[in-house]
């Protein structure tokens, strides 16, 4: 099974037109990071207003030396399965190069294995985050930029400890008013010209 899968993966990779040298499968990664986030399960946050505090660090029960390849940690906001239904642009794919589960970067920090304390970061939810259900995942990258491990706030099935973010509408009162004004101008200009021309035509006929 393993050699076949390896053959399939490498054949697939040769068709990729991209500048990556190789790609990592999510199923091959083991979770060695602990990630916690401030939103409680089911909490609703407002984009542009509310903050999320993320803390992450190495799982202390991991034997020493495993983290020698970790160079950078990137923490990302990821879609929960319920928000991926009927939306192929958010699909989870095992090949991490093609995976679209985690589309928003929260923070990136270099990794220092000597520092045993938990790192934390406070993030204001950005205004281009869509309305959906989320969890948070952190990846550790090696010096070549490939994922080597991860940690997330939810379980393996991505079923618990999820929270919701409500997006901004993108609408503004000034925009609405401008829209109404332009529309009114269009309609009035049309009927104005029409009636002026009709009156001119009548005037010419009368002469």
């Amino acid at each position, binding site marked *: 099974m393993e050699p076949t899968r390896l053959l399939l993966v490498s054949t697939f990779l040769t*068709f990729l037109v991209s500048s990556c040298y190789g790609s990592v499968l999510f199923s091959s990664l083991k979770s060695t990071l602990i990630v916690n986030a401030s939103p409680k399960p089911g909490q609703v946050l407002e984009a542009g207003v509310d903050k999320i505090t993320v803390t992450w660090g190495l799982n202390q029960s991991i034997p020493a030396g495993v983290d020698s390849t970790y160079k950078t940690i990137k923490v990302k906001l990821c879609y929960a399965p319920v928000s991926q239904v009927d939306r*192929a642009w958010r699909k989870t794919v095992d090949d991490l190069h093609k995976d679209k589960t985690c589309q928003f970067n929260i923070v990136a920090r270099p990794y220092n294995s000597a520092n045993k304390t938990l790192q934390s970061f406070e993030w204001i939810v950005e205004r281009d985050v869509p309305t959906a259900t989320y969890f948070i995942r952190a990846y550790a990258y090696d010096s070549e930029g490939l994922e080597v491990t991860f940690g997330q706030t939810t379980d393996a099935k991505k079923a618990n400890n999820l929270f919701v973010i409500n997006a901004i509408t*993108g609408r503004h009162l000034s925009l609405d008013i401008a*829209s109404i004004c*332009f529309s009114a101008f269009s309609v009035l200009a*049309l009927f104005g010209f029409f009636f002026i021309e009709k009156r001119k035509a009548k005037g010419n006929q009368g002469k």
Partner: protein
Amino acid sequence: MPDIEGSPGSSMHGVTGREQTFAFSVASPIVPTDTTAKFALPVDSEHKAKVFKIFSLANPHMRTFHLSWISFFTCFVSTFAAAPLVPIIRDNLNLTKADIGNAGVASVSGSILSRLAMGVVCDLLGPRYGCVFLIMLTAPTVFCMSFVSDAGGYIAVRFMIGFSLATFVSCQYWMSTMFNSKIIGLVNGTAAGWGNMGGGATQLIMPLVYDVIRKVGATPFTAWRIAFFVPGCLHVIMGILVLTLGQDLPDGNLSTLQKKGEVRQDKFSKVLWYAVTNYRTWIFVLLYGYSMGVELSTDNVIAEYFYDRFDLKLHTAGIIAASFGMANIVARPFGGYASDFAARYFGMRGRLWVLWILQTLGGGFCIWLGRASSLPIAVLSMILFSVGAQAACGATFGIIPFISRRSLGVISGLTGAGGNFGSGLTQLIFFTSSKYSTATGLSLMGLMIVCCTLPVTLVYFPQWGGMFFPPSRDSVKSTEEFYYASEWNEDERQKGLHSNSIKFAENSRSERGRRVASAPTPTNATPTHV
């Protein structure tokens, strides 16, 4: 054949059978020039232009041409303006694939009815006001995008903006009041092709405008709404230009239109009957649904497809998507030209073969596009698909004028509506459900194109033949006169109402291809009796 005055074929002396349906100008002996008229271009007795000078702005003929195609172009820009921005809109409005697909269907469905209504409006108010009313009354619907906050609103607004595609009808109608019927084919084909380019141009314009607005500081979910003000303002500007610079007829404005009786001399019910009972009409309605229809569907899905499948930036996906629609500038006229070229040698049979080949090739390239997993191959197959489909549109309208003389308007209208219907259908089947990925949807659409082009093999004209069968040997049925006169009943023929059809039948003898043999020219130049 004895050269008796008035013998059959003698009226065709000098005609070689090689005159094109599409020609840039009409020579003087064929259509006499009115030398008393003072226009920039040579005109016929109705003051319609006999020459098509593309780069001139001469009032009124060429100015009408440019105002007309640019108005149609503007409506295409606004109808498909949402397509390249869908990656942003779908996040703002929390759309599912079904919502996006339904909005695409809605955007092309509105114009099925509005195109039919526009014909009536043009008759009542004239093409100039028809165009202006439509373009300025749909401007508010474009501005309405700033209010949309969910899937339902999005679908409704795209439906309403789609009404504006009826400017196609006013465009073609207006052109036919300004240009002689011998060159109207090329004029209308060019105007339609250049108007369709709007579907491509919008894929360039909208991401560009969106990027600029973002750089100025707006957030994505506001920037796309502001971007819609650009097509909206274009509507208003074009409406005002047409109102102030345009005129209905070469000699002035509307009121003379009805007096001349250009409107409804014929009974609408009869015209409709002969259109609907001619089986060829329905074959071409189906075919156009799979050349124009798939072009419109692809305009709606292609930018999002490239963005998602190849991880491109929004404006890169837009540039690639634009090249699909922009190919119209040459592809559609090329299709018409190829049809004419084949007709020179093989007549109508050549036209049918050219149409079948172009449209089937287009379908084949569409299948390839869905299967392509590398970017360069995908772009290549997309461009080849666009040329095939758009050339097929041009070739279709090389044949339509010959299906019927009496019901040409209705048949053209039905065909146009068929295009939109085909677009709605393909989007509904292939691009709305999550059962297929967009890539699979494209391949299946290509397969459907190939299958739905097969009915063209069933088209048969007794006087010219079909793809596989030669013309009829029956001496009565194999004449053009019999075919076109059969659209009039005995009463009407007695009254001589069918005289235009007979004239058209004579001129259409060129569709026999090389078999046209004119009667030998008489040896003495002067007629036997004066």
